[in-house]
């Protein structure tokens, strides 16, 4: 029984030491990220960022070369409404003739 108590004590010490160490280690890592890495991020901004813009521009060019879906939607909407109005006018004309 005594040895069991001793084992519990050891496990307790291990738990305390372990948790304190894990928290201390990962907190240090937080400090590392917030100081060193944050500074590095400002000093050496990503070279990929302009590339991304570049590809966006390219995409835009490609899109403007073709017809964008938004424009197609607007045109087809306009055509539809024109047709509807037109057919209503025809209808009313026909009614008037009668």
């Amino acid at each position, binding site marked *: 029984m005594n040895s*069991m108590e001793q*084992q519990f004590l*050891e*496990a307790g010490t*291990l738990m305390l030491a*372990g948790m304190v160490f*894990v928290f201390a*280690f990962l*907190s240090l*890592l937080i400090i590392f990220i917030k100081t060193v890495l944050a500074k590095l991020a400002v000093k050496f901004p990503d070279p990929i960022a302009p590339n991304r813009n570049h590809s966006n521009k390219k995409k835009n060019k490609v899109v403007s070369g073709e017809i964008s879906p938004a424009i197609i939607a607007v045109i087809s909407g306009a055509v539809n409404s024109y047709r509807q109005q037109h057919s209503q006018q025809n209808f009313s004309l026909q009614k008037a003739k009668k």
Partner: protein
Amino acid sequence: MDSLTKLWLSTGLANFELGQVIMMLVGCGLLYLAIARNFEPLLLLPMGFGSILTNIPIAGFSEVGGLLHFIYYAGIDTGIFPLIIFMGVGAMTDFGALIANPKTLLLGASAQFGIFATLFGAIALNAVPGIEFTLKDASAIAIIGGADGPTAIFLASKLAPELLGAIAVAAYSYMALVPIIQPPIMRALTTIDERKIEMAQLRPVTKVEKIIFPLGVLLMTIFFLPAATPLVGMFCLGNLMKESGVVDRLSSTAQNELINITTIFLGLGVGSKLSAEAFLNVETLGILALGAVAFSIGTASGVLMAKVMNKFSKVPINPLIGAAGVSAVPMAARVANKVGLEANPHNFLLMHAMGPNVAGVLGSAVAAGILLALVGG
């Protein structure tokens, strides 16, 4: 007549022992879980098959000179296989979410409470007749709470090789059960309003940061916890290969071919430890029970820590992402995302949960290092 008896004696049927038959059925059970239920099939399939092979009478797969014997001693006893797998995992890990929101490291740290609390449980189980766990055994069992297969196998092979089979089976089974174990605990500990919390978008992380990060982690481990450098070192090597962008071939090998080959051998090697005398005892039941406890406590302490952080933080933190602190990448993060979506269909937590998720990997590697340093010596 004499030769007929000899022939009969050389068949499997004449030499089967009950324990071997039961262990073959256990192997079949693992195969069922892998094939029919899709539970961690990459590992449970070779592991289940290894268990069948090792229990074949006369063939002597796991005796000196047998195939599984060599696989075990070459790769698992030496700790090489889990470390190679850890390198592959490093090459697949993106620390972006963690670097963008470093506070989540605290969640990964608090979820490791599951490991250390289970130490207590394992020692307490010594009161049960038939169970006798030393502090080394207890540490190896407790690491199941880290929810990290390679780490668990690495530590068990160093501290309690005789329990390795049961520990690996428990670790991988519970990792497969993460979507079932975690959500009830997460719901019980949070209110619906907390689950609805939407988090601010993460800042973009530069390439330089991602390259320096693994080096920084390694440097800190060298300074403060050299016992963890095998795990952390291999992990950081894999991650640096990925993020540096100059060795895409090596990075791709580490996260594909190499990790696949190693997984086959690791599964077989662990399966070879599933022999009747090592597995069929009360201690295995104790290990399975402790594994579930470890997982649950880890999940709960992650969620509770996230709740506390949400109270004190200016930026809202959804407590659900705390549950991802138990590593089990990326399953735990997906679970957090899913439970979040249930409460609020516009709430996508996946990227936010990846932060504590990879923090959990680091946390459990650090915890393993501590156990190795304090108990293993």
